[in-house]
């Protein structure tokens, strides 16, 4: 039920068009890249799918994160703008269900985006590398892996958005976080496990390093931790309201 309500709140806010737009923009990268520089990539050694993710995922992941940031800010902006959240606070719902409704909604949107993106990557691989035989499981595995790696980012960003009434503050924090993660040196494993940094990792590179269980485990733990953090935060906030 809470999910239905959260979905309803997003009506006319432009959430869905934003998701579609971002998904299309992200999916355009590999296509454009192949249209312009197909020879460069077809000459490379390795699995076509991995070549394409290597070449494009950085930017696609970044767009996904931009969407997560904008989506989280948007959802909480509709709450704060006309004081809707206050009405929610005085209705008999468990504290935090509003937050988790938003989380699930954002994850679902992200799910759709990732599926489309990996499908386009697979499609490009199949189109430009005639010898390539693709499988459903490979595409799904890749999409699922990216989804889990993005979960901590979603959770953290939603927390930031729920904590700041001013949309541009949460937006600023999100953008700064994305930025800081891109300029930090990438050779430390600990740093790589930070939210806003994990979404850049591709399944192939993590598999190559044999770190798949590590990444999945840590990302799962981070997601749960940030979720609990939000719950505690909601309790504490009542003292200062």
């Amino acid at each position, binding site marked *: 039920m809470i999910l239905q309500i959260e979905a309803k709140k997003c009506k006319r*806010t*432009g*959430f869905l*068009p*934003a998701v579609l*737009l*971002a998904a299309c*923009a992200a999916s355009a*990268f590999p296509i454009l*890249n192949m249209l*312009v520089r197909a020879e460069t990539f077809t000459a490379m050694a390795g699995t076509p799918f991995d070549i394409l993710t290597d070449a494009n995922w950085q*930017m696609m992941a*970044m*767009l996904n994160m*931009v*969407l997560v*940031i*904008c989506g989280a*800010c*948007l959802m909480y*902006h509709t709450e704060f*703008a006309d004081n809707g959240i206050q009405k929610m606070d005085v209705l008999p719902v468990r504290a935090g269900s509003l937050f988790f409704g938003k989380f699930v909604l954002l994850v679902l949107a992200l799910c759709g985006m990732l599926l489309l993106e990996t499908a386009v990557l697979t499609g490009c691989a199949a189109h430009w590398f005639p010898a390539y035989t693709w499988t459903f499981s490979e595409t799904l595995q890749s999409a699922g892996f990216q989804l889990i790696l993005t979960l901590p980012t979603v959770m953290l960003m939603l927390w930031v958005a729920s904590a700041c009434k*001013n*949309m*541009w*503050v949460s*937006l*600023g924090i999100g*953008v*700064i976080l*994305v*930025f*800081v993660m*891109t*300029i*930090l*040196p990438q050779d430390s494993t600990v740093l790589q496990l930070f939210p806003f940094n994990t979404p850049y990792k591709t399944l192939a590179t993590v598999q190559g390093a044999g770190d798949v269980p590590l990444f999945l485990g840590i990302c799962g733990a981070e997601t749960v931790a940030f979720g609990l953090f939000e719950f505690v935060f909601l309790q504490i906030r009542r003292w200062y309201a």
Partner: protein
Amino acid sequence: MSFCSLLSIEFLKLKRSKIGLLLLAPVVMMWVPSVLNADMNFDTRGIAIAPEYNFFIQGFMGMVWFMLPASLVICTVLLTQTERANKGLLKMLSLPVSPAKLCLVKFLILLLLAVAQLGMTICAYYISAAAASHIQGYDFLLDPLFVLRVAACLYAGAIPMAAVFWMLATLVRTPIFSVGIGLASIVPSVLVLNTKIWFLYPMSYPFYLLMTEYGKAAPGVYETQVQWLPWLPVAVGITILALAIAALRFGATERRA
């Protein structure tokens, strides 16, 4: 009402908006790691570049590639939201002020905020370069004239981009879309820079200017001369067009409703 008094009014509106903090945060977060990793500047990975230039270029690269455009986008949100949140703009439009003038003043505020961040960046560069020099026992400090010139060029190169973002913010009423489009447009700027039509894409101008500086400091990395033609006329054209559209459409929805 004179331009200057309008400007001072707009500054007043920024009071207590904590915008300074938001401009400062990325500057600090970007230079602290570069001090901590100062030793990496000696490992130039086969590129013939002096460590002090490497320190400068690497530091500014993150800035112009992402943080400068993103700061501009966020500032446009701040400027439009303060007006729209409590219908402040409606009040402004009911006062004897020309909307176009108001729009341009606000754009000027945007540029001044960028200049403020430029100032912070230069200060942060000198502080962190001094710190890195102390830690590494190597002089990372560059000639202030050089630093000022390059930094000023980078920010001048950002003006067309700022104009486009400002136009987006005035045209697209849903803030999330103006921000989303703005941020998303930053992502492929490096990719566009590698194509022949980079001069049509304002988001890549500052990065282009920094790359030519890189080219001068490390021979063979990039072009050493700025291709003024056809870039300059195109950039000026984009700026004027964007500002004209913004000025014409400024407050249009408020006036209609």
